[in-house]
């Protein structure tokens, strides 16, 4: 029999969608949402802001519209056919119930594929049009300028005016020893396309992180003599942590012992029976706790204090010597009197392996992401070029607090592992088009899970009930933040007594339910492509595969298998309408 019956069912879904005009209405809605509505949405005036809002808004709209429609059509296509007895006709033919279920899913998803491709294509076209428009606008702005004015503007913007040797980076000269100027046409195009280039370098690109490895050094700047050159020294983070622990663990143990004795006294233990020391478990717990605190504290840089971080070039990235990558830097001012416009000096350095070949001082404002372009290689004094990645593909980044305020550079993530948002090295992994397709791929994975959810509900509920249940699940998924809070706090109560959250009997059954829902929904929501896309961050093929593995492999397949089993066991001749 093969898959012909399955395809017949899938094709029937198409027919129904077209005959009931669902498909055409969806096309119109999507076109209105992604094509018309962005025209009335305001952006911050910058090209990057405009593009980010455009992508965020349109992808969110596509996901919302198609998500709800997918739930609706999938729940309806099964529940309605059961209620109207049409599925009885199908079930008496040589097709398994699971094939009917899968056929419906394939039908809905093939329609989603076409709709998503259409809406995604419209958005991509709009983004490309707006990006190209930046250069066209730029050309219009400089069309009346003289060659000298253009060269002056280009010079101010950092556009090279002199042709240089691509290998050595040295300026080219003519026979008389004069530098060869870059053709004015190229300069004009470069100047006009400056905005578009920025956009394509930062947003319309797929940049991936060069992974940070667990080799961190705690460093400090010092001067051997007044007004002399700055030197630095450092120790591995582990050594620094151990030194700190030697200082702080005894203090913490004294504090804990004091608290323990007070607690015994308060509980009425006889003075002679009061335990005067911490047991081994309490000591281990105290040591672990203080270790975590010290690790967290390692992100705070006092005056002249710094860190060295190491990154390993991924195997898939093989840049040319003249290529660039970027360092993304973020820090927070730890002072209470923080001002938005305060600038904080940092001394940066970097080099291959554990060495440092370049050092510079830069001022930044806090709580903002900053990007510093970095070369893959630099010309050396002996000729040739020095690659910033050593033979083991390692590069080191050094940075020191050059100001007077203590600053926090969050190089650790929320779980205390290296790879936080403080320092990131980004390289171009792919173009925007590829990244955009991967983002649509993740949206498609979501839709697949929603289609499975709708069909699952339609397998055993009436259409109205299954639609209600699906919308309920959607609403619950929107309350993920609240559920996470409840799970973290261990109670549904929002009131406090003596600084502690109150408890409720509801917690007994609410906590396990919330834990399950958070465990199921959070990973799906974590695979949001929108944020990465608008930041120009790469959604790698591996991430895409992982998203499908989780969203389809776990959520979709679970609902698919359960739905098919329920449908197989169901007595199709008994429906809610005949009361049987």
């Amino acid at each position, binding site marked *: *029999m*093969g898959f*012909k*019956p399955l*395809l*017949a*069912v899938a*094709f*029937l879904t198409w*027919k*129904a969608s077209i*005959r*009931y005009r669902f498909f055409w209405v969806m096309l119109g809605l999507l076109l209105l949402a992604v094509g018309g509505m962005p025209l009335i949405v305001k952006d911050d005036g910058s090209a990057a802001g405009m593009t980010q809002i455009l992508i965020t808004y349109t992808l969110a709209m596509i996901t919302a519209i198609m998500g709800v429609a997918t739930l609706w059509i999938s729940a309806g296509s099964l529940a309605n056919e059961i209620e*109207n*007895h*049409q599925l*009885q*006709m*199908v*079930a*008496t*033919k*040589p*097709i*398994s119930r699971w094939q009917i279920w899968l056929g419906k899913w394939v039908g809905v998803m093939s329609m989603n594929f076409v709709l998503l491709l259409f809406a995604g294509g419209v958005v991509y076209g709009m983004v490309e049009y707006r990006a190209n428009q930046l250069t066209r606008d730029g050309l219009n702005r400089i069309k009346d300028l003289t060659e000298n004015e253009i060269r002056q503007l280009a010079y101010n913007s950092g556009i090279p005016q002199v042709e240089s040797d691509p290998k050595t980076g040295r300026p080219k000269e003519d026979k008389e020893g004069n530098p060869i100027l870059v053709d004015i046409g190229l300069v004009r195009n470069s100047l006009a396309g400056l905005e578009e280039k920025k956009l394509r370098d930062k947003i319309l690109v797929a940049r991936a992180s060069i992974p940070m490895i667990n080799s961190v050094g705690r460093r400090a700047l010092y001067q051997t003599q007044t007004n002399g050159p700055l030197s630095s020294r450092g120790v591995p983070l582990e050594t620094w942590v151990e030194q700190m622990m030697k200082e702080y663990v005894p203090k913490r143990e004294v504090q804990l012992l004091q608290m323990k004795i007070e607690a015994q006294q308060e509980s009425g233990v006889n003075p002679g029976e009061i335990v005067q020391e911490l047991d081994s478990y309490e000591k281990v717990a105290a040591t672990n706790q203080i270790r975590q605190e010290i690790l967290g504290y390692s992100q705070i840089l006092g005056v002249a204090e710094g860190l060295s971080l190491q990154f390993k070039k991924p195997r898939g990235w093989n840049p040319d010597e003249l290529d660039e990558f970027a360092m993304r830097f973020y820090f927070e001012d730890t002072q209470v009197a923080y001002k938005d416009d305060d600038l904080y000096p940092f001394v940066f350095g970097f080099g291959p392996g554990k060495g440092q070949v370049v050092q510079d001082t830069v001022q930044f404002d806090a709580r903002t992401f900053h990007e510093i372009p970095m070369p893959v290689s630099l010309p050396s004094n002996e000729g040739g070029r020095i690659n910033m990645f050593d033979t083991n593909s390692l590069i080191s980044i050094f940075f020191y607090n050059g100001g007077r305020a203590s600053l926090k550079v969050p190089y650790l993530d929320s779980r205390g592992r290296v790879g936080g948002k403080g320092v990131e090295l980004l390289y171009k992994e792919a173009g925007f088009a590829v990244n955009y397709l991967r983002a649509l791929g993740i949206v498609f994975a979501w839709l697949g899970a929603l289609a499975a959810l709708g069909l699952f509900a339609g397998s055993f509920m009436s259409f109205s009930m299954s639609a209600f249940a699906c919308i309920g699940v959607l609403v619950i998924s929107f309350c993920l933040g609240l559920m996470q809070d409840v799970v973290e706090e261990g109670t549904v109560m929002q009131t406090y007594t003596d600084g502690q959250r109150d408890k409720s009997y509801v917690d007994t059954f609410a906590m396990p339910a919330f834990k399950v829902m958070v465990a199921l929904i959070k990973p799906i929501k974590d695979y949001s492509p929108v944020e990465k896309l608008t930041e120009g961050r790469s959604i790698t093929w591996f991430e895409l595969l992982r998203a499908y593995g989780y969203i389809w492999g776990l959520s979709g397949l679970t609902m698919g298998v359960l739905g098919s089993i329920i449908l197989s066991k169901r*007595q*199709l*001749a*008994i429906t809610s309408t005949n009361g*049987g």
Partner: protein
Amino acid sequence: MEIPEVTEANSEGTTYSDDVVVVRSLEKVFRDFWGRPKAKAINDVSFEVRKGEVFGLLGPNGSGKSTTIKVLLGLLNPTRGMARIFGHSPRDVKTKERIGYLPEESYLYRYLNSAETLDFFGGLFALDTEEKKLRSEQLLEMVGLKGVQMRTVGEFSKGMQRRIGLAQALINDPDLVILDEPTAGMDPIGCREIKDLIKNLKARGKTVILSSHLLADVEDVCDRAVIYYGGKVQQYGTLDELLTERDTVQFTMPALSEAAQKEVLEAMGRHADKKDIRVDNPSQNLETLFLNVVEKARASDETSGATSGSEVAEFLRADQPVPTQAETMLNRLADKEDEKPKSKVADEESVSAPESKVDEAKLDLLSEVKPDPVPPKESPAEKKDAGKKNLDEVDDKLSGLLGRD
């Protein structure tokens, strides 16, 4: 009423004797949401349907006919007992390749037109495109919907929906055809055509289960039948067994003069009580009259609805002197399944042979106008009168079961 024992072919109980359908002690209880029994739709039902016979499920509305059929098709799970089709469970997917089903109501997709409906159901049988197209055309021709094949099923009248429902039930040239109230909503011509079709299927060795509460339907075509009431089988056997009154004899002869009639009556009166002897003229039944009228009108008037169905689809015909192309093909396919290949020469001959129409002679006979209430001398009234009487008797029996006078 005796129910023959099932002969199991093996210990697993998966195959049985030549019986196409075996039902044993079947019981179906419908329950409410809380699992409490709500209604016992069928109760201790047992019967079997033999290969090649037309089997009737007869009974008033709500007597359990459709429930039995739905259990046989795997749409309901029995509460107790068992049902086997071709020796397999009703849920067996492979077995369903051999079954055609017309439900009691049109459960078709209202947004599909006739051709698309047949294409869809053909697709479920994994028929290839050419075969689907060929069979669809023939079936649409057969059920008289060729002219309206682009209209959606939702626009059809009930009768037209029955016709397309019938067509989909035959798209796979099934070995077992289950027809639940096939004539409901059909005009008399449609009813006649369905009966002819059933006879044709039987002639091709197909098995037909016909569920109906219209006694004439069952009587005309069925070999055996069960009579349901209250979810239980009340009577079960061949129609002859069910209908024959052993204590009554009926003579039919050409019209006699008054004197001759008197003479015959006197002779009969010597052997039976005169008050038990009845003499009257047989009359044609309403169905025959209606068929004649419409047959005449059809020749001149047009209709926007379904036309009378054409001859039985080529691939379903049986009584051809020489098989048609489709039939040859189907036979060949069937032979393949049976691993009994026919000779190529014979097939080629079959293809080139001229087609002939099915039941033409019978239809001609039915459409023959009989203005004279007295039957012609050379053609005795055959079974018509007897049939009517038998029908009345079955009606009486059924009324008795229903508790009416």
